[in-house]
């Protein structure tokens, strides 16, 4: 259970940032993850009054506020078009609609959870994280950085990431994934992110020939599976994950081809 003495809704980001510098204070996103922890803090900082609940169209990029819910992302027509439906494919298996109406982009990306579906997709999309103090950080760097006391204000996603496909494997519907896989094939090359390894998602650059065929897709799947490190937990063993990885990468690449 999460217990605390004081609940505050700062009215500016500077105020929120100052509050979050204290070790006894804690930033709230949707609180779904935090609530599962056994923690006692002094003050919780609710970011809900800071206007961070908007998805903005910046022309070449989407700018997503930290307090935007996963459900808003899932049902956003512009994001669906940009990602060829991969945004909804990535989010629609997370617990349920009521849950996704609460869980936030900020909490999901700041948390950098190993099992995270959106972290995997956002990595392949080459997302950039906006931190109030540290400024812009590519997600590919942020994912491995220590948990600094900063406020994640926005995440930016390119509007034209190329062709995108997202696939995940679950032991049972709405459970945490056993493996997640996102592929983006754009002008700057092909990228593949593998998550729920069960370690945090990692990004692999794919060396692809001109055209994607069942053979080249399978070969790319084999290369990714050999390159990436996997581990075991109660959901699956490392060898199983490696075997699934080959299949998901191949299918995702073929999925990208079908969109051509």
């Amino acid at each position, binding site marked *: 259970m999460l217990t605390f003495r004081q*609940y505050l809704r700062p009215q500016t980001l500077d105020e929120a940032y100052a509050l979050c510098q204290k070790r006894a204070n804690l930033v709230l996103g949707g609180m779904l993850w935090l609530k599962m922890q056994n923690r006692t803090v002094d003050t919780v900082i*609710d970011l*809900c009054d800071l206007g961070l609940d908007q998805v903005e169209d910046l022309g070449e990029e989407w700018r997503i506020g930290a307090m935007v819910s996963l459900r808003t992302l899932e049902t956003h027509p512009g994001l669906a078009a940009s990602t060829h439906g991969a945004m909804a494919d990535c989010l629609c298996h997370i*617990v349920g*609609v*009521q*849950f996704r*109406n*609460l869980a936030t982009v900020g909490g999901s990306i700041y948390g950098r959870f190993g099992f995270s579906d959106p972290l995997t997709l956002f990595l392949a999309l080459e997302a950039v994280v906006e931190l109030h103090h540290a400024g812009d950080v590519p997600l590919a760097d942020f994912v491995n950085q220590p948990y600094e006391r900063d406020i994640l204000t926005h995440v930016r996603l390119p509007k034209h990431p190329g062709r995108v496909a997202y696939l995940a494997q679950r032991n049972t519907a*709405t459970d945490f994934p056993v493996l997640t896989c996102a592929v983006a094939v754009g002008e700057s090359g092909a990228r593949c992110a593998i998550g729920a390894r069960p370690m945090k998602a990692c990004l692999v650059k794919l060396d692809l020939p001109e055209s994607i065929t069942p053979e080249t897709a399978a070969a790319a799947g084999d290369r990714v599976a050999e390159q990436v490190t996997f581990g075991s937990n109660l959901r699956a063993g490392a060898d199983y994950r490696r075997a699934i990885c080959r299949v998901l990468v191949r299918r995702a690449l073929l999925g990208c081809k079908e969109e051509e």
Partner: protein
Amino acid sequence: MEIRLTLNGRQLRAEIEPALLLIDFLRAQGCLSVKRGCETANCGLCTVLMDGVPVLSCSVLAARASGHSVQTLEGLQEEAEEFVGFIADQGAEQCGFCNPGYVMNTIALLRENPNPTDDEIRAYLAGNLCRCSGYEGQLRGIRAFLNARGTKEVNPHA
């Protein structure tokens, strides 16, 4: 701390402990349809509408609900009555414990998508767990209601 919100259309002002969960606030207000199943954000039994959107009241602070409108099954009896009989007619439930969460989320589904396909119903209600049934009865009940209302699903296999 003080919170102000609209509960089932009624303006409320209340003095609460900052860490009070919305589910406990609502039950203390007499909304006993709001039940605690898992309290780990997994079962959907505690579903309420906040500003018309279905959320898990076990995972929202009452403090965050301040300034918003909250609806529970107590305030949505008429909307629920339209379809709950169809679910009962299918003998869909055994113990019935999951029912309030199901009904709340079905209300949200039908507002958002008045003519859902079976797959859309399954996807929307995936976060509502039932330990007794196999979910088919509830699905049949909602389908029977939609059919009776004159919205026939196009069978893709026909």
